[in-house]
């Protein structure tokens, strides 16, 4: 049962992140997950200062608030004309710095770092169960991530067309009468919610990796968004399952193995992809040279 819950959790994180990752990559905002993982530090510090405890409910609350603030600021800066990489960089370094400052001023003698108080570890998921009225309902993480994934599937499913046009061509979307800004904020809100709830259950590296690598892999294989999302989820799930098996064989960190697996799949795709692969490109170049 232990293995089953861990794999299910990994699959849920992988699916949720791979879907959102596709839109992030198209909008050139793939690093927003990494940004959130740092920018929630002041949220943690403020939650601690207000509550006086490191209770996980408070930490999650602070992190959620600052996760949303982070994506809101990033989106606002970007809308006002700044490049997306610059807006991400500015917001997360500034917020992280505020967090470090708050901790060094107020809580120097308390162990208050993200690794300790917010980021979870996927290995512990099976024990962190949720009990409702005396009945054990299974791991809390599975519920939290399951709900997150459902919300993502619902929203992305309902507004697929709008999300798609906004990602590819915001100007055209605006011309069609789609409230572009609203959908930008909605997507970023989803990313923030997913990131924070996954950080709490499985740790940062898995989430950041899964937001970028599967989507980037799928990007090399197709030009159609629907197919890209499907492939991205497939890559995410294969990495989750395969990575877990590798971690079993090597007795190593589970999150580390899963993300490495995704990295390996990406490299294989980069070399062998029939449309964007290095081999195909090399062959094409030689062909053109031959013609000349």
């Amino acid at each position, binding site marked *: 049962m*232990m293995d089953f819950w861990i794999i299910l959790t990994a699959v849920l994180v992988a699916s949720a992140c791979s879907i959102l990752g596709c839109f992030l990559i198209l909008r050139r905002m793939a690093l927003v997950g990494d940004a959130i993982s740092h920018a929630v530090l002041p949220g943690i510090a403020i939650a601690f200062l207000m509550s006086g*405890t490191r209770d996980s409910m408070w930490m999650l609350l602070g992190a959620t608030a600052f996760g949303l603030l982070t994506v809101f600021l990033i989106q606002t800066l970007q809308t006002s004309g700044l490049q997306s990489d610059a807006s991400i960089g500015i917001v997360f370094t500034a917020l992280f710095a505020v967090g470090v400052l708050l901790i060094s001023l107020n809580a*120097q003698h308390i162990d208050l770092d993200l690794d300790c108080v917010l980021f979870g*570890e996927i290995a512990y998921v099976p024990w962190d*169960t949720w009990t409702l009225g005396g009945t054990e309902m299974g791991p809390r993480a599975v519920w939290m991530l399951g709900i997150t994934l459902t919300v993502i599937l619902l929203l992305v499913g309902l507004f697929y067309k709008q999300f798609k046009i906004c990602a590819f061509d915001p100007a055209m979307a605006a011309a069609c009468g789609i409230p572009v800004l609203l959908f930008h904020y909605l997507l970023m809100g989803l990313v923030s919610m997913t990131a924070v709830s996954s950080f709490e259950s499985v740790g940062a590296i898995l989430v950041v990796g899964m937001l970028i690598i599967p989507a980037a892999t799928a990007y090399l294989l197709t030009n159609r968004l629907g197919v890209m999302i*499907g492939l991205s989820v497939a890559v995410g799930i294969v990495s989750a399952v395969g990575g877990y098996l590798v971690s079993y064989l090597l007795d190593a960190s589970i999150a580390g193995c899963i993300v490495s697996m995704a990295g390996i799949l990406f490299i294989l795709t980069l070399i062998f992809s029939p449309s964007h692969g290095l081999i195909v490109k090399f062959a094409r170049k030689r062909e053109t040279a031959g013609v000349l």
Partner: protein
Amino acid sequence: MHTDKKRTRIRLRLPALLLMALLAGCSGSGNAQGTSEDGRVLVTATTGMIGDAAREIGGDHVEVTTLMGPGVDPHLFKASQGDIRKLDRAKIVFYGGLHLEGNMERILEKMAQQKTVVAVTERMPKDRLLGSEGSEEFDPHVWFDVNLWQTAAESVRDTLIAEDPANEAAYREQGERYLRELEELDAYVRERMLEIPDQGRVLVTAHDAFGYFGQAYGVEVVGLQGISTAAEIGARDVSALRDYLVERGIQAVFVESSLPARSMEAIVAGAAQQGHEVVIGGELFSDAMGEPGTQEGTYLGMIRHNADTIAEALK
């Protein structure tokens, strides 16, 4: 779009089912929960210090595994796949508590609903714990006060007796012996610290792990970093500590086995520029013990090593 969603869902389900079947094979081969093949009680401890106590007191009746090996900083510990099995198989899990294990503690508390999970600091009198003002949080590095650590050993002994009453006599006898050894160690450390002249009895290290050591043995402890090993070190921390060294004429500072030595070396260099010679007095074990098989690979050896290193460098 609808086909996409359906495809996604099928992809979600199929591998999960396949995997369930596959892993049923992997994990089905374990022993009955809680005891080893030859009938010994399986005990899992988080840190080496706790595992050592369980090994000494449990003797041949227990099989002890520890999660955090030599040189591992418990605040930054990352579980591997095998650690799940170590925790899952154990009949008894011992941990430090007081937030030593960070986020893992929440899991250990939950695990207590399924098996015996004991924080060895649970029974320590609150007034002997060091805390920060205005909060419920305590410094978890209690093992440096050997006298206080005896209560941890007692917790281990009593838990073993409760879980395995058949071997009560053995646990009592081995517990008695171990507690006596701890008492001797306590006296030994006290003695060694008295060899250092009052003026120079200052322990300068990279992070504040030695608060209990200072309190118990009358040593002033100055740390460069806060309690957390992840907190950033401020520029003022470095220069303030350097000035302090020069002013008090302190001869030696110490590095720790589970932390990089760089910042301490910077301070030594800084003091040298001001014409005051400070040496690195040696490496202390703080959050983890030494390699198994060596003297420092046990709790007694580790504390003895620290006391000797400090006494030799400062006297």
